[in-house]
């Protein structure tokens, strides 16, 4: 693919480094996100729980996506194009809250992750709580 001038600037650099969910990722992750979007429906959540393999096959997950889901590997799901707004619905099935996700992704223990969250309060300028 030829270089894309729209990506040849600061915005593009930020998209790559954070990374952000742009066209590259959205295209790559479509099947995985479509499956997760389906989990708004309780019947679909039950179907996934009942036969995870069959359910993933129904949405034609890529091999990379299927493995990431099987491994419960959140970073790999993101790398496979998953978007956290949709993945959160899968996390719900797996009984994982956003702090569990945070711990998994940062490699911290849940307690260490929670402590890190709390510690941000110390950075509030001039203790401006209001």
């Amino acid at each position: 693919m030829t270089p894309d001038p729209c990506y040849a600037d600061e915005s593009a650099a930020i998209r790559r480094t954070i990374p952000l969910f742009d066209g590259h990722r959205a295209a790559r992750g479509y099947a995985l996100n479509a499956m997760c979007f389906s989990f708004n429906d309780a019947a679909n959540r039950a179907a996934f729980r009942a036969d995870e393999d069959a359910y993933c096959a129904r949405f034609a997950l890529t091999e990379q996506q299927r493995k990431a889901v099987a491994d419960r590997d959140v970073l790999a799901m993101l790398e496979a194009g998953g978007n956290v707004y949709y993945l959160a619905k899968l996390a719900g099935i797996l009984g994982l809250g956003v702090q569990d996700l945070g711990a998994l992704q940062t490699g911290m223990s849940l307690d260490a992750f929670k402590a890190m969250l709390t510690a941000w309060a110390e950075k509030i300028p001039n203790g401006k709580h209001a």
Partner: protein
Amino acid sequence: MAQIIGGYFTSHVPGIGGAIVRGDQDTPYWKPFFDGFPPIREWLAEAKPDVAVVFSNDHGLNFFLDKMPTFAVGAAATYDNADEGWGLPVYKSFTGHPALSWHLIDALVRDEFDITTCQQMLVDHAVSIPFELAWPGAESWPIKLIPIAINTVQYPLPSPKRCLALGRAVNRALQSWGGTERILVCGTGGLSHQLDGPRAGFMNPEYDMFCLDNLAADPEALTGHSAEQVAELAGTQGVEILNWIAARGALGDLPLTQISRNYHIPISNTAAASLLLEAA
């Protein structure tokens, strides 16, 4: 003449809904956040708005990547909340205001905003939690809803500058509406937080203060960044500040008085805030 009476801004983290279900409002963890709301509720009870124009973002309940609008405006008579997949209660339905919605839609397209018009639209926790915080336990919502959804999911996102312009176009449209409604403007989401990736748990109190300090008096200050720069500053979900910026625009040029402001870290993975601006 319709009157814009003020702006109500708040975080909309799903965890807030969980705390309400459990009755945790007065626990040490949650109290500093919920303490922001009594003055807002008192002001609303006094000010009695008739309709809320709510800027928020969908979290994968109503929109999917097959058709992802930059800006979507509701034109329905009723908006339902629904199961989002991870256990929040389904909230009461919302009554719409189709006549005012279509007036906004006509004015926005005439003003060259290429909106998507939604005659059917589910609204998620980004609308229901701010309503539940404002009118806890109400038998039915005491106010009509016009939802405006901003894409904060899939890049390219609209820039802060474009979001402020959208809000200002909404303001002009509201000013040309012939009704007598008392209109509340809402912006929901944020402040700084990031749920995904190795930077999960990131917050930025300094940027949040910059936003809170400038939103009322100098909203242009918030438009110097690209959406990507906002994501860098505020975290990948902190870009929900776009909803606040658009809502600020919808307040127009009226003098604004800050009735209430609260900022607390952490709520769930988020730096949480609420803000009430009265329009004079």
